[in-house]
């Protein structure tokens, strides 16, 4: 059990078990050092740039920067030296910390999955970060940075084997051997198409705001239409004489460039995240690899999947694109559930769902609709709130002394208009929202313009809550909140009697299984 290139620590004081204590890969201090420097590289670069014409200045900067660089690497080296891990009989233990030591142990049964992540620099050095997902979430997860690729892979196989043994013993049936086969992959063309739909409105908003706040940084005034006209007048002086139409042209150029930036941001982010996306099925579960610079490699054990969610966006649905997420206790890069098909057609999603042991609703499933009063109340709330808000702003504008333009006075009308649209959407969604219960599963379909389908395993739910606000009591409906390990699932607007029946049915199937056999 000696991994290549991993030093084994021998302590004279302890015998036996201490032999199993290992350090992470020696090269990891380089990667840790560079990432430790990460935040200070920019100021150093900025100072070098500022002194670019003065050799003495550059010398001084380097003199000051050198201790920081040295400290970062010394710290990284200490961290590497002080971090040890042990692969025990029942658990994985990691001891770390330079000043205050922390020892953490995670039993194999509690490890939801083991994910490997390679950021750019570790990847160049052939290192991986190994994370043991327990469902504790975020920074509480046990992780080892960094191990050699071979050691990471070995550790993952080992953890899986240990865990599968205990699971198989429990179930009484050994896990069937299945070959690695591709379930879903995204060729570059698909990734690029996906990127186009990931238009980043947030970036556009931030940029538009920043352009107003930080325009002093630009060599020209972005919002000065006269200057735009002058610039445009360079090659074609005729524009200057056009007056208002040139102003419109300037506005179009400004909006167009913001849109282009929004599209480019979405495209770049998507390509970075999804490049080389491949989902395979192996003996242990579904394995997903993706990423251009930071490559991640995650395995989701199929029996730990609590629910599946099919989603889409308003625009991409017009082209038939959907996404598939698996809900489990493990977290996926900040996201609560694992995306196993971010951008796929229906016929590609169906086999993946079948592989997870879930099933799509059949034709003969009997659907139940939700309460009409719920949709009515929601629409009413939208209308009342937006009308009050619009009226309030309108009153403020009328009272303000220096507002005379009629255009400005008409502007607040946009708010109630949006309210009417939202109310209409509630109405539309009511006719579409429905749920169904089969022997195994609970289905919930909602949102008409971008249809979502949630499928939960009845037996794997944790708790059921019926909640009613004042309006809901008046309308005789309730929201059913289902406790789902690692995710949320709620059915709003059920008629109260239906909610009670549904809860009884769900509890019947829940009480038949104990928690320890489910997760």
């Amino acid at each position, binding site marked *: 059990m000696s991994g290549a290139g991993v030093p084994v620590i021998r302590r004279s004081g302890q015998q036996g078990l201490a032999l199993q204590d290992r350090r992470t890969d020696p090269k990891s201090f380089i990667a840790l050092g560079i990432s430790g420097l990460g935040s200070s590289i920019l100021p150093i670069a900025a100072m070098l740039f500022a002194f670019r014409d003065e050799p003495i200045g550059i010398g001084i900067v380097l003199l000051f920067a050198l201790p920081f660089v040295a400290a970062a690497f010394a710290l990284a080296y200490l961290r590497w030296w002080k971090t040890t891990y042990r692969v025990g009989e029942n658990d994985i233990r990691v001891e770390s910390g330079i000043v205050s030591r922390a020892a953490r142990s995670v039993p194999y049964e509690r490890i939801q999955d083991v994910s490997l992540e390679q950021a750019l620099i570790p990847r160049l050095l052939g290192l991986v970060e190994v994370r043991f997902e327990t469902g504790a979430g975020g920074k509480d997860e046990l992780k080892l940075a960094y191990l050699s690729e071979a050691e990471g892979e070995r550790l993952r196989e080992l953890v899986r084997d240990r865990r599968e043994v205990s699971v198989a013993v429990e179930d009484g049936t050994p896990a069937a051997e299945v070959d690695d086969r591709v379930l879903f992959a995204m060729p570059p063309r698909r990734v690029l198409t996906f990127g186009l739909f990931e238009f980043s409105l947030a970036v556009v908003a931030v940029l538009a705001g920043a352009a107003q706040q930080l325009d002093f940084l630009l060599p020209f005034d972005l919002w000065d239409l006269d200057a735009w006209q002058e610039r445009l007048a360079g090659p074609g002086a005729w524009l200057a004489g056009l007056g208002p139409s040139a102003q419109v042209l300037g506005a179009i150029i400004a909006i167009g460039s913001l849109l282009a930036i929004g599209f480019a941001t979405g495209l770049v982010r998507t390509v970075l995240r999804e490049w080389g996306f491949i989902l395979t099925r192996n003996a242990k579960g579904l394995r997903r690899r993706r990423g251009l610079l930071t490559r991640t490699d995650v395995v989701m054990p199929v029996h730990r999947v609590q629910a599946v969610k099919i989603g889409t966006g308003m625009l991409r649905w017009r082209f038939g694109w959907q996404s598939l997420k698996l809900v489990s206790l493990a977290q996926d890069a900040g996201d609560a559930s694992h995306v196993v098909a971010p951008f796929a057609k229906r016929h590609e999603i169906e086999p993946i769902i079948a592989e997870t042991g879930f099933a799509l609703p059949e034709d003969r499933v009997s659907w139940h609709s939700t309460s009409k009063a719920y949709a009515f109340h929601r629409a009413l709330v939208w209308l009342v709130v937006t009308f009050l808000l619009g009226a309030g702003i309108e009153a403020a504008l009328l009272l303000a002394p220096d507002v005379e333009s009629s255009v400005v006075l008409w502007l607040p009308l946009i708010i109630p208009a949006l309210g009417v649209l939202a109310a209409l959407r509630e109405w539309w969604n009511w006719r579409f929202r429905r749920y169904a219960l089969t022997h195994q599963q609970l289905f919930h379909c909602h949102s008409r313009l971008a249809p979502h389908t949630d499928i939960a395993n009845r037996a794997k739910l944790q708790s059921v*809550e019926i*909640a009613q606000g*004042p309006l809901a009591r008046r309308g005789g409906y309730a929201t059913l909140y289902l406790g789902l390990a690692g995710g949320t699932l709620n059915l709003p607007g059920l008629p109260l009697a239906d909610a009670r029946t549904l809860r*009884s049915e769900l509890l019947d199937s829940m*009480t038949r299984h104990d928690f320890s056999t489910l997760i």
Partner: protein
Amino acid sequence: MDEAGLANRNEVATADHGELSRLHPDHIKVLRIAGVLWALPFVIGSGVLETALPGPPGLIVGIVLVVAAILILRVPFRRYQARGYAIGEDRLRVVRGVLFRSDTIVPFGRVQHIDVDQGPLERMYGLATLTLHTAGSHNASVPLPGLDHADALAMRETLRAHIRRDTM
């Protein structure tokens, strides 16, 4: 479904919708004292405002006192009336909320761990809060306050007997 199963089902149905056990009446007192402690800074603050601002004497203090009186005398009683629980054969039902009603059922088989907590006020009256923790993101913890401390401990033992020993 056989007869025994049907009988069992009916029993379960009553556990889901039937009569609820009330919390200990001293729970109202705990809520009232908590209300007094909560309202005190506001009453003092309104007194200070009263002396600092011109206007009819006693207006601000009067309004604050009326609101505080409702919060201390009426609301705790309503909250107590709205709360209840039922222990079934394999599940616990917790009901709470005056304006926003919530009715939660947790099967014993889904309980991760159990807390029995006593705040200083609860300790004065020998009460306790039983909290069930589940693995779900929603209802990750379901608190049941205002139980007699001995009852809470007994409930914890009942629950623990139902939770299967894990494979550790």
